[in-house]
Structure formats: C-alpha cells, structure tokens
C-alpha cells in the first residue's frame, strides 16, 4: 500500500512572501543560474535561450524593479563598458529573501504537480 503523499508545506514566517508572478519567477530563476552580477542583457538572453520567449528588454527591467521593491534582489551600478557604447550596467544580485521565495514557489508547484507529471509531459 502506498503511503499517502506527505504535505511538505512548512509554514515559516520568513517564507510568507507574496506569490511570485510568472515573469518574476523567470527572472529569479535566470538569476539563480547566472549567479552574481547578472544584468538585463544576460538575464533576458538566458530566458530566451531556455524557454524561447523573446522578452522585451524594458519588460525585464520592470520586473527587476518590482523584485527589488519586494526585497528579493539588490541592484548596483557597474562601470561603463565600451561594448555598450560606453554605458554602465545595472548589476543584479539575488538576496536571501529571493532564494527563499524561489524555494517556496518551487515547493508549492511541486506539491500541486505531484503525481501529475506523466500527464503533463512536454509534448
């Protein structure tokens, strides 16, 4: 007999972040992959290469702004670089709160999808 599915939801105050929107998840995941000092162009490219979604650059920035307002990422301004026509970069670093939000989102998703994977397999 199979044991009933365990509920892995842990109620932690620190985890009670607002649910992440679709864009926000993509950007956070991209950041997670890219590590520190990712910026708009690399984040956008990562998302495009992995999901095929061609996002508008300005949309990425709106999302980064929102994440920063929620305290999930931190941004700082980098040095000017000639390849960018002498313009500076806005470097984005994930904060611990961001990691927690991402984990929480992942746990929620996994809890809901448990047992349904084979039906939702990418076709």
């Amino acid at each position, binding site marked *: 007999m199979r044991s009933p599915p365990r509920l892995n939801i842990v109620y932690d105050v620190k985890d009670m972040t607002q649910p992440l929107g679709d864009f926000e998840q993509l950007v956070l995941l991209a950041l997670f992959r890219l590590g520190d000092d990712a*910026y*708009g*162009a690399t984040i*956008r*490219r990562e998302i495009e290469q992995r999901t095929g979604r*061609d996002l*508008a*650059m*300005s*949309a990425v*920035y*709106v999302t980064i*702004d*929102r994440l*920063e*307002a929620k305290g999930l990422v931190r941004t700082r301004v980098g040095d000017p*670089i*000639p*390849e*960018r*026509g002498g*313009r*500076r*970069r*806005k470097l984005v670093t994930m904060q611990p709160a961001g990691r927690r939000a991402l984990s929480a989102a992942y746990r929620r998703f996994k809890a809901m999808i448990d047992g349904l994977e084979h039906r939702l397999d990418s076709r």
Partner: protein
Amino acid sequence: MTADHLSPPRWAERIASWRLPDDRREFVLGDLDEEFRHRAIQQSRADATRWYWRQAWRTLFGRHPRILTPFEQPPGREPERAHVMNNIAADVRYALRGLRHHPTFALAAVLTLALGVGANAAVFRVAWQVILKPLPYPDASRLVRVWEAYQRNGALLTNTVAPGNFVDWQTDTHSFDGFGAYTALRSTLDLTGSGDPVQLEARYVTGDYFPIFGAAPLAGRILTSADINEGDPAPVVLSERVWRQQFGAERNVIGQSIKLGGVPHTVLGVMPEAFGVSAGATTDVWIGLTLGPKERLNHGGHYLGVVARLKPGVTIDRAIADVQTAALHTRAAFPDSNKETLATVTSIEEERGGTLRQAIGLLSGAAAFVLLIACANLASLQLARGLSRAREFGIRTALGASRGRLMVQLFVESLVVAAIGAAAGLALSSWIVTVLSHVAPATLRAGLAASVDWPTMAAAGALALLSVVLFASAPAWQTATRAGRWINQRVASVDRHAAFVRTILVTGQLALAVMLLVGATLLVTSLSRVLRVDPGFDPDGVLTFDVTVPNRFEPRDQLFAAIFRETQALPGVTAVCAINAVPFDETFNMTYVSEGDTKPVGAFPRTVTPGCFEVLRLRLLAGRLFTSHESTRVGVVTQSFARRAWPNLDPVGRRVHLGIPNGAIIEIIGVVADSLQRSLETTAYPQFYEVASAQSAFIPTTVMVRTSVPPASLFSAVRAAVRRVDPDQPVARLRALDDLVGASTSERRFNLSLLVGFASIALVLSAVGIYGLFAHVVAQRRSEIGIRMALGAVPGTVVRLMLRRAWLAVGVGLIVGLAGTYGLSGVLQHLLFSLSPTDPWIYTGASVALGSIALLAAWIPSRRAASVDPVSALRDAQ
C-alpha cells in the same frame, strides 16, 4: 569588425530612448546594444537589426510603470512624455477594438474614405506625370522652345521654324546659351544588318541640341557640333529602347558603325528612356544635321523645332522681345517669304501636357469635391456613432476626463480610420489608374503604367490627414463639449442638433454632386457632338502602312506599282494609293504663293498617287482629279485654299509658286471639298494635293488601302503581300485609319472617364448620406410619429411629413449647386465643343436625375415611419 559596423540602427535607438524613463534609459540601451552586437556576430547584422527594431517597437507601445521607493514623490500633474504616449498607444488599441466591434461603421467609414482618397490620389498621379514631375535636366526651368508666330484673328498662332529663319535668329539673338534645332516632321530610316530590317523614327539635330538639355547619356557620349562635318555621314545617338531591343544593350556597339538607310553611321552614345519622351515625340535615333547653303536660304519650309536655353537672369519675356526683333530683321531682309512672320518663346517646363493641363486643373477640383462629399458622409457617421456613445463619454467626463482628453481620443480614432482608409484609397487609385491607362492619350500611357510611387503615397497620406481634420474636428469638438451634459440632458435634444447638422451636410453634398453631374453630362454631350463631326473624308474601311521608299522616282514608282498590284488582288480590297502623310497623323505646313500675287497661303502639302481621292472619298467640287499621266506639274486644292488664295474666283486653271514667289509653278486643275487633317474640333485647314511624279515636292511613303471588310482582318494578308514584293520591306505603322481619327479624341475621352467616374461616386455617396440621415431621423422621431398616429394621422401623411426635410435639402442643394456651376461655367468653356456651359436642358436634366435619386434615397427609410406601431413607440419614449 569595426565599432561602427556593430552599432545598432540609430532611429530604432532613438525611438526606444524617447520612451524610456530617465532612470532606466542608460541601462536598457546598454543592454540592447550589447545584445545587438551579440546577435550580429552570432547570426547576421540583418537579423540583429530586425530584433532591435522589434525591441524598439515594443518599447514604444509597452507600458513602463515605475515602482516608487518610499522616498519618492508621485509625478506632477504635467504629463510626462511617456505618460502621453502610453495614452495614445492605448487609444490606438482601443480604436482598433472599437472598429472590430462595430464592423458596419468601420466598413462604411473605410469605404467612404477610400473612395475620396482614391479619386484624389488617381488625379494626383496624372498631374504628377504630366505637370508636376521635375524634368530630368539640370536647371530645366530655363529650357525653352522658339517658334515662328502669326497673327490670325486676334490670336497668335505658332508654327515650326524654317531653316533660313533658324540660322538668322541663331546669330541675331542675345538671350540664349545655346540655340539648337531638330527636324519636327517625321522621318524614318531602316536599320539593316542586324536581324530583320526595322524602321526607326529618326530625328536630325544640330550640334547644340544635346548640350542644351544637359542630360547625361546612358552610355558613350552625346552629339556635339564638333562631330558634324558637312560631307561625311553624321554620327548618331541611339535611344535606350533601340539599344536594348536591337543591340541587346551591348556596350561595344558604341564606336561601331551601323547601317541606316544603307548609309553607315558611327554610334556615339545612347540616351536614356526619359530623355526620348520628354524632348518631344518618340525618337529612336538622333542624327547630326547639316544645313547646307540652300537650306540656309529656305524661308518657306517650316520643318524645324527649335530649342534653346535662356542665359542666367534672362526672363522669358525678354527672350520673346529678343526673338521678335530678330524676326522683324529677317522680315525686312526677306519680305516675300517672311511677310507675316513673327516669333515667340515658350517654356518647355510649362507647356508640358499641352491641352491636358487645363483639364487636370478641372479634374483636381472635381476630385476635391468627391473628397468633400466623402468627408461629409464620414462626419455624419461619426456624429451618429458619437450619439450612441453618449453614455460612455458622459461617464468618462463624470469620472474626470477632460474635454481635451476626450478629443484626443476621438482624433486618434479618426486617425486610425484615416490610415486604413488611405491605404484602401491608395489601392483603389491604383486600380483607377490602370483602367485609365486604357483610355489615356498615348503620351500619358507609359507614365501611368508604373505602379504606385512615392509622391502618390505621400499625397494619399496628406489627403487622409486632411480628411481627418475635416471630418473629425466638428464631431469631436461637439462630442467632447456635450459629453458632460449628455447624462443630464435628454438625448433627444442632442439628437435633434445632430440631425440638423447632418441635414446641412447632406445639402452641401447635393450641391457638390449636382455640380459634378452637370460637368460630366456636359463633357459627355461634347464628346458625342465631336464624334458626329464629318471629317470630310471617309475613314471607315481604310488601312494604312508605311514603307521605305527609294529616293529616285522610277524605282519608287515601280515599288508602289508592285505593291498596288499585290494588295489589289487581296479579297475585299477596292482601292489603293500612296500618300506622303495620312490625315490625323503628324503633318506640317507649306507655303504657296499665287502667281502674280505676293501673299503666301499656308497649306498642308499632300503628294498622292491618283487613286487617293477615291480611297479617301474626297468630293470633287470643280475641275478634275489626277490621271495617271500628267504632262505638267498639276495640283488639286481644297475649298479653303481656293477661298484664301482667290476669293470669289474660279481657281481652276490658276497657278501657284511653291514656297516662295519664284518657286516652281504648279497649275490647279481641280477643287475638292475640305477635309479635317488634325482634329475633329478645328475648322478645316487648306490642303494642296500634288500628283506624285519625278518633280513633286514631297515623297509618298504611306500606302492607303480601302477595303469592304474590316481593315484589321486584312493586316496579315497585307504584310504578306508586301513581303512578296520585297522581303526586306519593314511594313511599319500598320493600322486602321478610323483608329487614328478615334485617337484624336483620346484626351477628351480621358477627361470624360474621370469626371463621369467622380460624378458616379458622388451620386452614390450622396445617396448613402441621405439614406443614413433619414433612417436616423425616423428612428429619432419615433415617439413623435407614434403620437401623431395615435391622434389619427394617416401613414401617408406621416411619411410626407418626414420628407419635408428632404424636399428642403434637395431644393436648397440643387439651387446652390446650379448657382455654383453657373459661376464656374467659364472654367468649363474650354473643354466643351459646340455646347454652352450653361445649357438649360443639361441643367434641368441633371437636377431632375439627382433630385429623383435623392428623394428616393430619402423615401425608402421614411416609409418605415408609416409602419411605426403607435403603442410601442409611445411606450419606448418613457
């Protein structure tokens, strides 16, 4: 790769930059730049450019909210750039959605606008081709033509120039940088030695001709005075068409020798297509012209066209005075030939299009009327739609939308409709132009064949913008102003005001429509009168073609005899002859001086074989016609020649000198009835017929064949017959004579087609406008009708009541329109033939026709008033 090569498209960058908030701009642009380079290297620069433009586009129409940190203040009341643009982008999306939800309105609006813009774009296209397009020569405004001129019945008539006059005036004038001439009469030369012999249109030009225009050759170089030496065969310049068709556009033909008319000529260069058309009639090859000593004293044969370039600072009027003085000097030196010869100068740029210029002005006006009518319909549509959106606007005003904001939205909506309508109009104009090119005069046809070009697109865009201003401003202002009141006021009063405005619009439409209808009817009537004119000869059942003839008489005579023999044997052929110039083709002027007199008489010279009178069916009025054996030089003149040379006297037996008082003597043996040679609309010009002989002044080159069967059915048989006589003969310009006569009315038919088209569009649009108005009025006055019927009114009375408005609109519209037509009758005069522009029958007929259609369009929806159920009408009025 250099840094430049990898910089993104400047304009896309500008667009993106404009939309981005200040605090984000640098970073976003930097990222876009970096990604652009990455893509350019990974894929291609083209791909990267496309991606960048997509990004810029999305930045333009996207949203750019800014998350405010706790320490920032919200932005002030003044709209930032991004804020305004956000709204406009939203308005565009909203407008498109609105059109999707109201397809009937969208369709009606787009169609109406398409008709208005299409008509105007088509006329613009024609105007561009004929008058507006800049000539392809440097400083083209200084190019002029010099003419001989004569005072005749108070008007100054122009004529081509005799070589003697050309030579004298070339040295005697001081206003010109360059004074050149070209042969204005048709000459053809056979090109042999490369495939089948081909007959080319040749033009002989003096050394100054090409330098005056300053056009660059397509290949090789132009002909100049240095190239022309008396005695040697002159070098030639080919046209682009001949270079491509006969020589496959090979560059090595330049410098080579080609055989024209059996004589070798060196090819100097090739002129582009554009030059050949604008410098005069079609030319295939230009040859250097030498005027020998005899020609330099020829003041009687007017066969040269003269072109010149004004010196800097010299006006046309000064140039005219200059050539007039020169003409007077020549008259003093040669009083016999130049007794009445004056001179004048015209600007090549301004005489383009000739008679078509005036017509284009008229047609532009007509097209503008169509646009106004269309805009009136659109304004009505907008008003009606505005009424149905009363609640929506009322609510928005209550929520704080300013009048300006609402107006901007309405304008944006109108712009969207205008953009779609302009695109549809452009497509329609393309179709109109294609149809027109079938009835267009030959000179216009090539220009109209090209597809839509930039100037037309710009014109369509400008027109759409103009119509937005015309049809959107009033309704927009009204809607925005009254929006606030609509919630409070009863819709009925606003409705009444709208109905009043629409009635005004309909009245205006009717006025414009009747003007167009009268104009169109006048043109149609004129054309039918022109077509009824008797040309004096019978063009039906005659075909003509050109052959290349030997210079000497005997071989030429034998050639014709053989051709006549072969063609006469064909079934259906009743008569054959040869002539130097057929009626309604290019023709030139010759002077004749009556013996014992000094007054010269101008006439069209015709050298004919005796059968031509029978072929053309010219009526003999006195004396006799030619026989095949004439012992002396004899001639036959037309009535008008006799009247001019020997008024009230018998011309038979009299003698004339050819060209000048001491010229060769020709005896008149007969008089034939006048016949028209240039146009059905002018009076007959004198003609002088001489029998073809060894001494005749001109050479017949065209064969005319009268047939009892349709001429076109014999075309291939005729070609075969000539080939049997001489396989090397190029049978050129094979055509039916009545087609040639018909072509002379092509300009008239062209103007007519456009005006009739416009009048039809105006009629349809006006009818639609009236229908819409009355449908609206009936719906609006439903409760009133219900009351009347409840009180005992008969349905017929109710309908008549509705129609009172129609009678008023139609009456006022017709009166205003007819008054306008009367006022513009002076403009129309030039385009009419034997018809008064204020012809009362036509005014009456057009009024009755338009009035009937208008009343019918009003009556159909008004009938519904009779079927209103009083009970439900009253109930709905609560």
